[in-house]
């Protein structure tokens, strides 16, 4: 089942002489449960693509359809609610809230929606991520790898259908990045979620079900299994 689809998705920055085509006519289909790696050199448009797919930016033209909803037909406010419920984000620099504990950071998306916290699920999630003993620690008391694990927990707290990760291991050493990627994949596999990861790490990319390669805003390779 196709969970995410783009139609001639394009993004242009600037005008006239300073015009930059960050993404040109991207047509992608991603199925439920797929693990997709987006690769390409710096400045090739990877992050632009990910931000557009996740509703963090607005395209110059084209559509992004997630679970049947054209997300850019929504108003700014609706889009932010949509993001909260439908997609999870993991960033290179974790973006945790420093005054909240690990557990509070994880449950934040639920609290924002005044939704009852499914304690069993959150506990299970923290178990997989190895955070049970650290749930009352604040971000500055955690290592980089642990902080990224907390942000994985936050991304999965609302049981989103898609998780987007922008260089999730870009700030970690090789030992920690291996662990973080394995935990991320274990969690999305367990809850049958779709995972889209931007990465420079060819090792990570080689394990994906689909590899999308971008160069100069154009999708040059879209190789998938399913």
């Amino acid at each position: 089942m196709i969970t995410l689809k783009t139609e001639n998705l394009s993004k242009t920055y600037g005008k006239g002489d300073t015009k930059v085509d960050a993404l040109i006519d991207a047509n992608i289909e991603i199925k439920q449960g797929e693990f997709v790696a987006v690769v390409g050199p710096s400045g090739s448009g990877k992050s632009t693509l990910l931000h557009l797919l996740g509703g963090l930016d607005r395209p110059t033209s084209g559509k992004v359809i997630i679970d049947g909803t054209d997300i850019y037909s929504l108003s700014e406010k609706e889009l932010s609610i949509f993001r909260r419920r439908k997609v999870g984000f993991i960033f290179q620099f974790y973006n945790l809230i420093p005054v909240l504990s690990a557990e509070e950071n994880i449950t934040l998306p639920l609290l924002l929606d005044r939704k009852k916290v499914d304690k069993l699920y959150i506990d299970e999630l923290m178990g997989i991520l190895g955070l049970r003993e650290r749930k009352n620690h604040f971000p500055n008391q955690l290592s980089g790898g642990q902080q990224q694990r907390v942000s994985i927990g936050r991304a999965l707290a609302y049981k989103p259908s898609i998780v987007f990760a922008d260089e999730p291991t870009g700030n970690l050493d090789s030992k920690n990045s291996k662990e973080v990627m394995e935990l991320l994949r274990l969690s999305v596999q367990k809850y049958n979620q779709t995972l889209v990861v931007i990465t420079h790490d060819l090792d990570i990319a080689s394990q994906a079900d689909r590899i999308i390669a971008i160069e100069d805003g154009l999708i040059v390779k879209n190789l998938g299994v399913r």
Partner: protein
Amino acid sequence: MKNKTSAMKRSRELAIWAAMIISAISIILAAWAGIRLSYTKLSSDLIARNIEVIGGLVSAHPELEENIVNAFVKEPTAEEKNIGHSYAQKYGYSTSMPLKYEPIMDRHYKHILILCLAIVGTGFAILILLHYFYNKLIQRRVQLVAEAAERIVEGDFSSKLPEANEGEFAKLTHQFNQMSRILEANIESSKSERIFLKNIISDISHQLKTPLSSLKIFNELLMDSEMDKGTQVQFYEKSEQQLERMEWLIKNLLKMARLEAGAIDLHKEQRSLEDTLRKVLEGFEERLEEKQLKLDTCIKEDISFSYDEEWLSEALSNILKNAIEHSFVDGIVEVRVSETPVILRIEISDTGEGISEEDLLHVFKRFYKGKNSIDRSGTGIGLALAKAIVESHGGLISARSKEGQGSTFTIVFPKGIV
């Protein structure tokens, strides 16, 4: 379009709420103003009458002017009150007289009654009207959900309810859409399962047909008695090989089918991973020697977790078998077990021919054989079975490879779920 209508619905709901609050406040204000106005009028009417009485009495008895006025503006003594009552009683004028005999009070009573009824009546009318509109709004929403449910019953999953809003209704529509998506996914997966079943049946029959037809030919040849003893033995040996292949295939297909159908209870027990691995590796000594492969192990001791030994051994054996099969003679097979505070990891690597980038995407698919791989005894089921076993233990299996240099298979288990 959809978002516009949902925004409109939202503002309509707000408008009804605002109207309710505003009308409630204005009703209270109107009641207060009306009652105050009526009583002011009543009070001025009473004073006017008193003044008329003063006028009448003073003109009749000018010498009593001070007494008469004082009687109206000063508090009377108890004695004066009693005398008043007894004099008035004589003319039938008392406090228990019916309302209608007091013209001022009677007139005002009617006014105030009408005023109160009017205020309460309008209040009720407004609230009923607003309640009606509010109900209608909710009804329309419920209808929306009912219609969507009907479409789903008819098998149309295309339309989604507006869900990107705050509030309980949006949470309902969100969960509704979620439900519809899961239903759709289930239907789709059962459809693809049917296609898969069709494919698997044709695959199995194909896989079994080849050894079966070989066996048939061998059998026919063996029936020809003119064959010398040596050739006969050769054919018997070949037959045995084919029989073994068929047996292995049938056994593993059954295992996989049972595992995937969830018809197996894993007998998970806390065990030493090292012991299990050593046992598995023992079984491969002969084959390693045959190919002159060096076995390199780096197994962290005292790692124990809860797993089903028989099944996990099966998975590990299949990966090892694959590694040995694809190794060049004189190569190295490496088995490493390591752990971090959150996960434990088993890595099995070889220095064999490796897997191409494209094949790597399919390496765990059932019956998938590499595009360029020469058919050995491989059936394309061993790794698929390994994946099914690892995943049923809540683990993750992945493969990395460089063509010409070898492959590494990694199994990861999270320690947090047992």
